[in-house]
């Protein structure tokens, strides 16, 4: 179980010097064996929350507890070794490092073709065509995204953080993507997404707004939660257009 207690994250504007709260006094709990989807407008702090959970950034206030242990001050490596696994929104490219290299680094062991085939076929890729390819600009955005997810599968873990896993993946492959979530149903999964098909897989949806987080569980009318707040869209437009 992952618990976030009174989490705040504040940044300082480099130009104006003004302090801005990205997240403020956030209290959230993500249960074991649950798929949680975080959704909400741009700039509402969803990706920041993922970074705080993984340890890329430290909260300016509050605590992160994992299975009762305070991990707030632990670094990325320590969290990864405790079972935190992340798939980036924007996959990273590496000159010279192959898909096989990355899968082996992720799994922490040598992998044979069957092992790699298991991870890659889960994301709709054929191992034979990919294992020796470099994870660089020669791969398309969709291929990189799938390999990013395959790495998460290869690594395994207890807590999965998937930041917009559908980005760059064609609509025709959505069902394959949803199958990956099914494979992780015995873990704690936190997905940032805006896609209805992914929202439908959730046990719990968290709607991020700047001043509030609302949550709805399976069985409740999740979409009512979203449609109840049409002001979100209008406010976004207003802020972007008129500052």
């Amino acid at each position, binding site marked *: 179980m992952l618990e976030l207690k009174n989490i705040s994250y504040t940044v300082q504007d480099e130009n104006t010097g003004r302090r801005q709260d990205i997240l403020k006094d956030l209290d959230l709990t993500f249960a074991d064996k649950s798929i949680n989807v975080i959704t909400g407008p741009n700039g509402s702090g969803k990706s920041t929350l993922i970074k705080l959970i993984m340890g890329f950034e430290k909260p300016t206030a509050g605590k992160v507890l994992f299975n009762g242990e305070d991990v707030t001050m632990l670094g990325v490596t320590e969290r*990864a070794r405790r079972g935190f696994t992340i798939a980036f929104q924007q996959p990273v490219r590496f000159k010279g490092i192959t898909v096989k290299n990355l899968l082996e680094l992720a799994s922490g062991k040598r992998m044979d073709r069957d092992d790699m085939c298991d991870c890659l076929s889960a994301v709709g890729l054929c191992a034979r065509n990919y294992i020796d390819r470099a994870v660089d600009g020669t791969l398309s955005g969709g291929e990189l995204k799938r390999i990013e997810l395959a790495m998460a599968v290869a690594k395994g873990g207890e807590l999965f953080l998937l930041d917009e896993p559908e980005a760059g993946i064609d609509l025709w492959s959505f069902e394959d993507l949803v199958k990956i979530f099914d494979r992780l149903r015995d873990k704690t999964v936190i997905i940032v997404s805006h896609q209805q098909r992914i929202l439908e897989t959730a046990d719990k949806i968290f709607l991020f707004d700047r001043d509030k987080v609302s949550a709805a569980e399976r069985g409740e009318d999740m979409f009512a939660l979203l449609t109840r707040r049409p002001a979100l869209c209008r406010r976004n437009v207003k802020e972007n257009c008129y500052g």
Partner: protein
Amino acid sequence: MDKTDSELLETIADLHGIPEGSFNIRKNGKLMARNSTADIEIVPKKDKDGIDIIVKPGVVNKSVHIPVLLTVGDFKETVYNDFFIGEGADVTIIAGCGIHNDACGDAEHDGVHTFHLAKNAKVRYIERHYAAGDGTGKKSFDPVTNIYCEENASFTMESTQLGGVTSTVRKTYALLGKKAQLLVKEKILTDNEESAVTDFKVELKGEHSRADIVSRSVAKGRSVQNFGSDLVGLSECFGHVECDGILLGGARIISTPKIDAVSPEASLVHEAAVGKIAGEQLLKLMSLGLTEQEAENAVIKGFLN
């Protein structure tokens, strides 16, 4: 052959003892072993230090090893090796040099290699430079490689220097005839106070000739690398130079491109990128459970792979 010799040979030429086929092994300025075959003849020069390697026309799928070992200090040599590759031949040439210098005097090997590729000939040239030893003496290589490709000939050069070399100045010149091709893959790692200078000059003389030079380098410590390339397009041709460098510590990499489209039909491209390892690369690997140091090593290993 002692233990040091065996280790150097394995590092620079993947050899576990004396190879089969044609070879010439040189140690501390003297011949250690040589073998000519009917296909590839090795003839010592009479006027200066060095050998002629003559590959008969049509010889394919053969290789020749010409490693050089230096295991003493206070030693400097310049060796002239000329390669004559017959029409339609297709061979691999492995020409590594290893220095093990435990002395306080300097050890330096300068190989001047000149390749003459006849029509339709194909060469894969593997050159590995490596140095070790605890002495304060310098360990230096100043290789010169000249490549002359006739029509439709193809020369691939895989040049690797992965540590221990105090200083190196590497000069490569190529003249490409009609439809001739040059492919260079260079990998250099420097550390501490080491310096490496690489200088390529390629003249794309023949129509539809093609050159592709890819240099990947990692500079650590306070080492300095200086990469220079000069592509001259004299006809309808394609030339591409790519210099990628990773900087660590207080190291420095200087990349100087020059492309000269003498012919308006020439197409020449230069790309260069030098900088630290991207923070996101380290974070991604750390999120797989690697420490920062392990992540850095993995990025460098892949980059120089």
